[in-house]
């Protein structure tokens, strides 16, 4: 409640003050709230402003003519600090209406309106009309010093130009500019400004003519002063080009305000910043941009921009050239899409769409088709600019990459040729990188191992190396790759059937055109067969040597046998001749007993000679010394001859040989004497191994290609167990007659050899105690 009462009292006090001020010529303004909303304006103020509708407006909108005169800043400072501004007053200038309009200067005092808690709730400003002289008096010496101290300590150049004579503002602009150069001189400047011209202090330049400080002919300077006049003698942020003490170019950014008196400009105040460095930097940047532009042109890089709001597509000249368009051809999104190669439209449009949705940049290599049909490759890059998630613009570049694509194509073709060659090569080809990882294997390799490419690459393929050979293969590769040298190593690798095959692996180092080591390329060939054949060859050589030795041995044996037979035969022949002479009567008659004894001796000697003959026959045939003399032979006639020859022998045993051939002659191609000996042997055996009185039957049957002779006896027969060894060398079969018959066990062996040499066959069927049938089959051959 206390607050309310004291508030009421304060407002009452204010009303009485306002009432009083309304009657004075002073300008009174009351503002409330932090924005300084105008709460009260005195009638005097209305007159000066020339309007009344300022109540309720924020101060900056209510009094735009005070902008730039420091008034608002003082009010705002008071709001911030809650205290009165130091120095008491602020001078502001009003242009008061009427003809001619005139300037009125007022000095304002500002006071805070405080509530009971001491918080600032508003500001009261009271302005009193002053004239120039008054103003000069008002400024104390102390204030002057403070002003100068501020000037001297500022980093910004501060200056004041005076004119020898005021210049009427009604003159043409060009004339005003010319007169300004002519009449203006520097009346005041701080050290910061002096330093911008290359001086240590301001003293040397005070009094300098504007025309000496500013380059008069520079359009920039003329433009600067023209702008000053055009803007009502008030400018901010305008650049000027000047020279310093040493004649160096200097660039300044200026703000200045002119003082007009009676329609004439009398002086100007201003500040300037040295922007030479920035200016030069910008210039350098521009040059750099120009260079970039040149570079873009040189690199066949074109740019485009698409305003999505206006659907306006802008292409740089370079881009037009890349797309085969003239500088004045119209371009639109549709034009662009139509120029795209049909194969590439979908991809590029998808990229556009994605970028428009996300703002992501894209990069696509695509083909375009010029109107003349030429196809070119473009590397397109672009990006949509989104604002609040919506695309507003799209920017991009296009670059011709024909050369690169051609190179890539050639590389691909070359690569394809290599792959094709490698996949059809009869060798296993591999490639590794600098880190010894397998990067390529040809089809023959994969077919060889039966392993997929994926599982073979890297180090996968080494799983197929024989575990015993892995260290050897690895060492060969490592040793060679240390010095980037070729290598050659043999190791076993498991093939798809699970069998290990010996491979000869040759690796050659690969280098880039810069000489960088890239790894190895190598080929493997399966040398298992070669190695085995080498082994065979070696074995063959050994065998040949052994054969030569054996042949030599055999020759020695043959010679021995030949010699031995001669040596054995000679004494036996001697016995034969001498007993023969006795038996054949060369020494007169013998008694019956003598004859019988000599006959037994003679027969025994004969048997010895027979054994010697048989041994020789076997030795000959085993040594391969028997050469058949093939000739047309009548087998039937041959059998008849044998029967005739052995007739007496059979008759003695009261045996008959029954032979009734269907044809008088049965021809084959054979070595007749030897076949005859075979048949003699079989017929003789048939008789010998048959009891007396049992007949022997001989049959002959001619087939289409061969002839079969069967010799059947009714003899002792052969046990089944003995049949197998019948035709073996020196084999004797026990039977009731064998001891009586004798024999060397060579006859059937030799017979089989002879028949085999004729490409025929010999066999026997037999029943013990009933008889046997020996069968000879002989091919007819060429007769």
């Amino acid at each position, binding site marked *: 409640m206390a607050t309310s009462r004291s508030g009421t009292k304060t407002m009452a006090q204010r009303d009485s003050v306002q009432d009083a001020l309304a009657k004075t010529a002073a300008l009174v303004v009351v503002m409330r709230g932090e924005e300084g909303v105008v709460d009260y304006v005195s009638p005097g103020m209305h007159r000066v402003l020339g309007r009344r509708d300022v109540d309720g407006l924020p101060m900056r909108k209510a009094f735009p003519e005070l902008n730039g005169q420091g008034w608002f800043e003082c009010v705002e400072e008071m709001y911030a600090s809650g205290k009165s501004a130091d120095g008491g007053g602020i001078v502001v200038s009003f242009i008061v209406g009427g003809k001619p309009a005139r300037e009125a200067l007022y000095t304002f005092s500002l006071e805070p309106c405080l509530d009971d808690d001491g918080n600032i709730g508003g500001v009261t400003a009271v302005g009193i009309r002053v004239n120039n002289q008054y103003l000069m008096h008002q400024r104390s010496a102390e204030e002057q010093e403070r002003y100068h101290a501020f000037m001297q300590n500022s980093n910004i150049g501060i200056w004041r130009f005076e004119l020898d004579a005021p210049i009427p503002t009604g003159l043409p602009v060009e004339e005003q500019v010319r007169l300004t150069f002519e009449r203006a001189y520097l009346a005041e400047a701080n050290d910061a400004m002096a330093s911008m011209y290359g001086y240590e202090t301001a003293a040397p330049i005070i009094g300098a003519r504007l025309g000496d400080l500013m380059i008069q002919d520079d359009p920039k300077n003329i433009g600067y002063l023209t702008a000053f006049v055009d803007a009502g003698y008030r400018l901010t942020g305008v650049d000027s080009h000047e020279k310093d003490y040493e004649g160096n170019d200097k660039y300044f950014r200026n703000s200045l305000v002119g003082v007009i008196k009676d329609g004439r400009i009398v002086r100007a105040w201003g500040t300037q910043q040295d922007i030479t460095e920035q200016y030069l930097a910008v210039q350098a940047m521009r040059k750099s941009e120009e260079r970039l532009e040149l570079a873009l042109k040189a690199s066949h890089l074109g740019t485009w921009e698409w305003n999505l709001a206006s659907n306006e597509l802008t292409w740089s000249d370079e881009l037009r050239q890349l797309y085969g368009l003239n500088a004045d051809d119209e371009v639109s999104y549709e034009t662009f899409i139509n120029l795209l190669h049909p194969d590439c439209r979908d991809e590029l449009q998808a990229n556009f769409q994605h970028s428009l949705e996300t703002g992501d940049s894209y990069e696509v290599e695509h083909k375009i088709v010029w109107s003349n049909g030429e196809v070119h490759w473009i590397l397109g890059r672009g990006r949509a600019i989104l604002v609040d998630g919506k695309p507003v613009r799209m920017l991009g570049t296009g670059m011709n990459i024909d050369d690169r694509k051609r190179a890539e194509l050639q590389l691909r073709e070359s690569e394809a040729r290599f792959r094709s060659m490698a996949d059809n090569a009869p060798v296993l080809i591999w490639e590794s990188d600098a880190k010894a990882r397998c990067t390529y294997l040809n089809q023959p390799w994969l077919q060889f191992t039966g392993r997929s490419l994926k599982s073979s690459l890297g180090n996968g393929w080494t799983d197929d190396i024989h575990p015993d050979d892995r260290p050897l293969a690895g060492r060969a590769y490592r040793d060679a790759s240390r010095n980037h040298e070729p290598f050659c190593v043999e190791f076993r690798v498991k093939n798809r059937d699970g069998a290990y095959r010996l491979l000869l692996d040759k690796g050659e180092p690969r280098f880039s055109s810069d000489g960088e080591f890239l790894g190895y390329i190598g080929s493997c060939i399966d040398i298992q067969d070669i190695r085995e054949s080498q082994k065979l060859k070696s074995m063959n050589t050994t065998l040949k040597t052994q054969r030569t030795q054996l042949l030599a041995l055999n020759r020695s044996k043959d010679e021995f046998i*030949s010699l031995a*037979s*001669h040596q054995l*035969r*000679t*004494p*036996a*022949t*001697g016995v*034969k*001749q*001498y007993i*023969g*002479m006795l*038996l*054949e*009567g*060369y020494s007169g008659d013998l008694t019956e007993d003598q004859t019988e004894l000599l006959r037994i001796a003679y027969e025994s000697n004969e048997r010895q*000679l027979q054994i*010697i*003959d048989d041994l*020789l026959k076997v030795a*000959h045939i085993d040594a391969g*010394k028997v050469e058949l003399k093939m000739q047309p032979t009548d087998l039937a006639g041959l059998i008849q001859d044998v029967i005739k020859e052995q007739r007496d022998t059979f008759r003695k045993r009261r045996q008959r040989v029954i032979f009734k051939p269907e044809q008088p002659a049965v021809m084959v191609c054979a070595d007749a004497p030897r076949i005859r000996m075979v048949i003699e042997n079989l017929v003789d055996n048939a008789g010998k191994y048959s009891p007396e009185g049992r007949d022997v039957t001989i049959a002959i049957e001619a087939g289409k290609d061969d002839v079969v002779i069967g010799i059947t006896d009714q003899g002792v027969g052969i046990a089944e167990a003995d049949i197998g060894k019948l035709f073996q060398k020196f084999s004797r079969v026990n039977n009731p007659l064998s001891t009586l018959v004798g024999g060397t066990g060579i006859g059937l062996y030799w017979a089989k050899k002879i028949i085999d040499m004729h490409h025929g066959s010999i066999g026997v069927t037999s029943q013990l105690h009933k008889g046997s049938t020996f069968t000879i089959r002989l091919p007819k051959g060429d007769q």
Partner: protein
Amino acid sequence: MKTILIVEDEKILREAYKKILAQEGYHVVDAPDGQRALKLLDDETPDLILLDMLMPHMDGLEFLEHADLQSNHPGTKVIAFSNLSNQQGLNAMMEKGATMQLLKSSLSPRQLAAIVRDMTGDGQPAAA
């Protein structure tokens, strides 16, 4: 009387053949090797030579080569008479002029006498 030359290094056989053929009525001369036989040919022209193959000093084949019977004794026949089962050697002797080849061990005295009679063209044996 027909003359038979026996060239045989084995004395026991040489004597046997001499005895058999002499009893058969032939004039028999003999030599233990090829060299001696060649010398005999200077004085004799045999109707038949029983020529052993394997002998010291000069074997049967060399004898045939040196004797040149075709030129010097065109009427003389030769039996390559061997106990050696060397078919090649026997064939070579046949090429050098031997008329026939015989294995010594295969013939009894009468069989030998019969062959000699055939070769010399004598129909009847001198002894029974």
